[in-house]
């Protein structure tokens, strides 16, 4: 009855889950559409355990094995054809994340600025200028997938990963920038460290940010870094209604 749209592919992924995948480029328009459609599915479909969002897809997980996949698929397509993401407001937040770019906290800053032919000051300016879009959390608990890195800062990952990237390290890898929420192995070039706790398993909501929020960085001194980390000061934010 409802034709599958060329830009939306619906696929049974496991016994209990359905994958919706968009053919569009992962731009801001698509992100907003995913955030709104996710909310719509959550309030209109029964038996959903959770929906997870990534660049171009939504994964719908159900409580029980799917018995009537065909009906469910039709229902999802019907919901999709009747919805208009531009008519819905999204409540999101803009987060200000402090970073200490001092050499002690930025193991690869010197090498990277040499490669990119930029001064430390220019590099930091280019990194703190954009408003980054938060797409989703993955890779590690509390790791934010950000879009918006200045093209002048694009740089390949290191050839072999560092075994112990420290907690809060801020890196550049390819076209991406991000914060390591915990000590872990990693291949990105480290240009600074944030004292902000990106993941706290003791909180009911262990990560402050969510898909659709935005973020920007600002530069801080070592003294401020220590103050924020020791007192576990949460980042400040502005409410946005889009």
């Amino acid at each position, binding site marked *: 009855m409802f034709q599958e749209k060329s830009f939306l592919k619906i696929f049974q992924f496991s016994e209990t889950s359905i994958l919706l995948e968009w053919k569009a480029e992962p731009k801001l328009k698509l992100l907003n559409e995913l955030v709104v459609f996710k909310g719509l599915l959550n309030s209109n479909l029964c038996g959903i355990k959770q929906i997870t969002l990534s*660049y171009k897809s939504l994964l719908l997980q159900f409580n029980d094995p799917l018995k009537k996949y065909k009906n469910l698929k039709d229902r999802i397509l019907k919901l999709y054809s009747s919805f208009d993401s531009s008519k819905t407001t999204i409540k999101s937040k803009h987060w200000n994340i402090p970073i200490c770019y001092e050499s002690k906290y930025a193991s690869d800053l010197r090498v990277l600025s040499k490669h990119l032919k930029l001064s430390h000051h220019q590099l930091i300016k280019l990194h703190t200028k954009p408003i980054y879009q938060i797409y989703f959390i993955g890779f590690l*608990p509390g790791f934010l997938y950000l879009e918006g890195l200045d093209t002048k800062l694009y740089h390949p990952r290191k050839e072999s990963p560092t075994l112990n990237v420290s907690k809060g390290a801020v890196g550049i890898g390819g076209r991406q920038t991000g914060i390591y*929420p915990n000590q872990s192995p990693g291949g990105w070039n480290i240009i600074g460290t944030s004292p902000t706790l990106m993941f706290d398993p003791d909180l009911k909501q262990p990560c402050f940010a969510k898909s659709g929020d935005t973020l920007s960085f600002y530069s801080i001194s070592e003294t401020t870094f220590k103050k924020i980390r020791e007192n576990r000061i949460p980042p400040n934010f502005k409410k946005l209604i889009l």
Partner: protein
Amino acid sequence: MIEILNPGWYTSIQDQGRMGMQEYGIPYSGAMDMNSFNWANKLLNNPLNAALLEMTIKGPKLKFHIETVIVFTGAQMDIKHNGNKASLYSPILIKKNDILECGSCKKGCRTYMSVLGGLQTERILRSRSQCSYITKSGHINKKRILQIKKKSFELNKGVTLKSPLPPYNRKEIEVFKGPEFDSLESVTQLKIVTQTFTISHLNNRMAYQLEEKIIHQLPEIWTTSVLPGTVQLTPNGTLIVLMRDAQVTGGYPRILQLSNHALNILAQKSTRDVLHFKLKSFE
């Protein structure tokens, strides 16, 4: 309480895991072999989500400081209860100061030990399952004390105690097509579902790598959702089967998805075990 005298090779506390927390990037976790996990709790009339011990390759040595009842399920293992041989799939009555010594796993690599009422360890983000970055440690350490409930025991009469062992020797792993399977050339598809694969030494609660390589031309994809049981194909042709503690997103093509049943069977396989994929459709 239970005192850990020796933790064994890799023993961790597990329940059904952290389903519903993946939007924060938190792994699913939970018992690797859910079938054996469920039996272990069922045989004690425990709540479905009661936490227990998952023992890998070689089990721990434990001292009990409380009366309780325990059950072992999963991989065959030599278990000595105060020096006497004990068996799997039947409740064992434990008295204060009893010593339990677990040997190595045979036919399978994960043995489960449930305790009456379940382990009462700390719940973090809806689960007691141990997992790196979420709980203080990913496994139990020597000298750790595990709290349990004081509870009276009634045999679960509705349950057959002689339950059939899971088919650990089965080489067939049931799979569905993954989202990127159809992008593979048909000869490659055929190869994947007909050839035999060997589990590499790189296998743990996060993922199992397979040794045989599959040469392909698939591009990497935009980072997307993955599940326990998702089979990824890396650019150099390695197949990686994601397990319960895997990351919740990935950028490698997802060529296959294991059925729940197959995921439990694979969890009992280890280094150098062989398998082949059997393609199935959902209908």
